[in-house]
C-alpha cells in the first residue's frame, strides 16, 4: 500500500521560540499513503513539527519539501494539507453541513469539475453526504455543532478536513478528549479510513498504545530530537535507547556493565545476551520488559527476590519484586503472594543493551 515515493521531506528543521529551542535539526521523510505517528511526551516538539507541516509556524532553519519542492514559506491556505485540531475547532455559527462544506464553498466551480454555481452546489452536497456517511454521521446535516458530543464533534472535524481530499491529513491528538472506549473505536475507524482513502496521515499523540495500534511508522521524539524511527514492532522489540524503551510499553531499566560481546553484568550477576560491539566494561542501560521475566523456583532462578506487592491487571498480575537494591516489575498470568521468595530467569534475546543517553537537559 505505502508507495516508496517521498511525499514530504523534512531537512535540518530547527525551531526556536525566543531563547528556547524546541526542535533540533530534524531530518525525516514521509512516504505516500503512510500512517506516521509523532510520539513523545508533552513538550517534546511533536505539535510544533506538525504546525510547521501545516504552515502555521515557520522553521527557524531548514526546509520542508513537498514532492521535492520547497514549501517552507507557503501559507496554510495554499497547501494541499488539512488539519484536524486538538479541540476540534468547529465553527459554532455554522451547522454540521456548513462546517463540512466550508472548504469546498471557497473553491471555484472549475476546481470541483463543475460548469456552473448550481452544479457546484449539487456536487458539494454529494461530497458532504459521502463524508457524513464515512464518519457515520448521516442525518446530522442541520444540527448545531454545540449540540454534539465530543466524539461526534471529532467526527465532523475529521469530515471537514477529509472532504477537501487533501494529500496529507495532519491530526493533532484528535482523540485526546474522548473516553477510553470511544478512543479505541475511533482508532480503528481512523485507520480504516486512512487505508480506504489512501491518504497520508501524520498523527501526533503522547499515547504509546494509540501509536502502536494505528501507525505504519512511529517517530519517537523527546526534547526536540528524534529518538527512533521505525515500525511499531521494531520500536517495541528493539528500542534504541532507554528513553524509547521506557516510553513505549513498560520496562525495567537497570545499570549494567558490558563485560564482552554477548555478556553483560547487572545486579551482581553475569547474563548471556545477544548484543555486540560495545566497549569492554562500558557502562550501559539494560532494558527488560516486565512480561519477559519468568518466575521460577527460588533455587533455579538467575536472580532471587521477594514479592513486595501484587496488582491484578485483568489479563495478568503485576508484581513488584525486590532483588538487591532494584525493584523489578514483573508481569505474569500466575500470581505469587506478597512476601514469597521467588527466582527469576531471563532468556538472552530478551535482554536489551543500550548505550547510556548523553546527560543533558
Amino acid at each position, binding site marked *: 500500500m505505502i508507495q516508496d515515493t517521498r511525499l514530504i521531506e523534512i531537512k535540518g528543521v530547527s525551531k526556536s521560540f525566543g531563547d528556547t529551542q524546541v526542535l533540533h535539526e530534524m531530518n525525516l521523510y514521509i512516504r505516500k499513503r503512510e500512517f506516521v505517528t509523532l510520539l513523545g511526551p508533552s513538550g517534546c516538539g511533536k505539535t510544533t513539527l506538525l504546525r510547521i507541516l*501545516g*504552515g*502555521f509556524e515557520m522553521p527557524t532553519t531548514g526546509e520542508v519539501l513537498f514532492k521535492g519542492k520547497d514549501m517552507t514559506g507557503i*501559507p*496554510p*491556505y495554499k497547501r494541499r*494539507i*488539512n*488539519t484536524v*485540531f*486538538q*479541540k476540534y*475547532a468547529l*465553527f*459554532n*455559527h455554522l451547522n454540521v453541513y456548513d462546517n463540512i462544506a*466550508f*472548504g469546498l464553498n*471557497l*473553491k471555484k466551480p472549475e476546481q470541483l469539475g463543475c460548469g456552473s454555481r448550481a452544479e457546484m452546489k449539487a456536487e458539494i452536497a454529494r461530497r458532504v453526504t459521502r463524508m457524513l456517511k464515512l464518519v457515520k454521521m448521516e442525518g446530522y446535516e442541520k444540527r448545531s455543532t*454545540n449540540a454534539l458530543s465530543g466524539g461526534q464533534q471529532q467526527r465532523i472535524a475529521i469530515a*471537514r*478536513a477529509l472532504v*477537501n481530499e487533501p494529500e496529507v491529513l495532519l491530526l493533532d491528538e484528535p482523540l485526546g478528549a474522548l473516553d477510553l472506549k470511544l478512543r479505541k473505536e475511533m482508532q480503528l475507524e481512523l485507520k480504516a479510513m486512512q487505508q480506504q482513502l489512501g491518504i497520508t496521515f501524520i498523527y501526533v499523540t503522547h499515547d504509546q498504545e494509540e501509536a502502536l495500534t494505528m501507525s505504519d511508522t512511529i517517530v519517537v521524539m523527546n526534547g526536540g530530537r528524534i529518538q527512533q524511527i521505525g515500525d511499531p514492532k521494531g520500536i517495541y522489540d528493539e528500542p534504541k535507547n532507554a528513553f524509547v524503551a521506557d516510553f513505549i510499553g513498560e520496562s525495567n531499566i537497570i545499570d549494567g556493565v558490558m563485560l564482552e560481546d554477548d555478556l553483560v553484568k547487572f545486579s551482581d550477576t553475569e547474563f548471556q545476551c545477544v548484543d555486540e560491539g560495545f566497549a569492554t566494561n562500558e557502562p550501559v542501560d539494560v532494558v527488560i520488559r516486565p512480561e519477559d521475566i519468568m518466575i521460577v523456583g527460588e533455587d533455579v532462578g538467575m536472580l532471587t527476590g521477594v514479592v513486595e506487592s501484587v496488582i491484578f491487571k485483568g489479563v495478568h498480575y503485576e508484581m513488584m519484586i525486590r532483588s538487591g537494591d532494584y525493584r523489578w516489575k514483573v508481569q505474569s498470568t500466575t500470581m505469587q503472594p506478597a512476601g514469597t521468595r521467588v527466582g527469576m530467569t531471563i532468556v538472552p534475546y530478551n535482554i536489551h543493551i543500550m548505550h547510556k543517553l548523553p546527560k543533558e537537559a
Partner: protein
Amino acid sequence: MSVKRGSRIFRAVWMALVLVFLYAPILVMIGLSFNASVSRSQWAGFTLRWYGELFRDPVILGALETTLEVAVIATIASTIIGTLGVIGMHAMKKGMADLLINVSYLPMTTPDIVTGVSLMLMFLFAKVPLGKWTMIMAHIAFDIPYVLFSVMPKLRQMNPNLYEAALDLGCHPMKALYKVIIPEITPGIFTGAMLAFTMSLDDFVISYFTSSDMYPNLSRIVYSSTKLGVKPTMYALSTLMFVSILLLLILINRRTKLEELS
C-alpha cells in the same frame, strides 16, 4: 432570637435607606412629571399633559433627532473601529497587547469633564469649529473603550485554532476574519454596540464641551432650561430619558447573562 430579629430589622431598614438614597430623587421627578400642577409642592392630580407638550415642542424634537443621530453614527463608527482594533491587539504578543488594552480602557475611568475639556481644547487647537461633527467625533472617542471592553472577552474565550482552521480550509487571512472570527465574536460586538449607544444617549458633560448651542442634544436642552426655571415638560423629558436608558441597560445585562450561560 430577639438579637436575630433585631439584626434582621436593622438590615431591612439599612437596605431601605440605601434604596431611598439612590432612587428618591428620580422617583420624585417621575412623580412630578405626572403632576397636573406646575407647583413642585402641591399634587393637583394625574396628567399626561407634559408628555403631550413635549412631543409638540419643535426645539425638543430637534434635540431628540440630534441625540439619536449622534448616538447612531457614533455607535456604528466606534463599533467598527473598536472591533477591528481589539482583534489587532489580541493578535499581538501578550505583553504588548496587555499594555495597549489597558491604555485603551483608561478613558473609561477619566472624569468626563477632563475628557470633555481636553477634546474641546484639541478641536479649538486644530481650528475645527465646534458643532455636530465635533460632538460625533467626541462620542466615537469615548464609546470605543466600551466596545473593546465587550469584545475582548469573546476573543479570549475563542478557540485559538478557529482562525487557523479557516486558513487550513483555504481562507485568506481577510476572509478568515469575516467568515469565522467576526461571526464567532458577534455577541460581544452586539453588546459593545448597545453599551456605546447607551453611553452616547446618556452623555451630557462631554457633549456640552464639544458642541455648541446651535446643535443642542437632549441633555443640553434639559441643562439650559434649568437656568430659566424648570418646566414640568423637563421632568417628563428626563423621565423618558431615564426609562429608555434603564431599559437599554436591562437588555444589555440580560444579554450578558445569557451569553455567560451558553
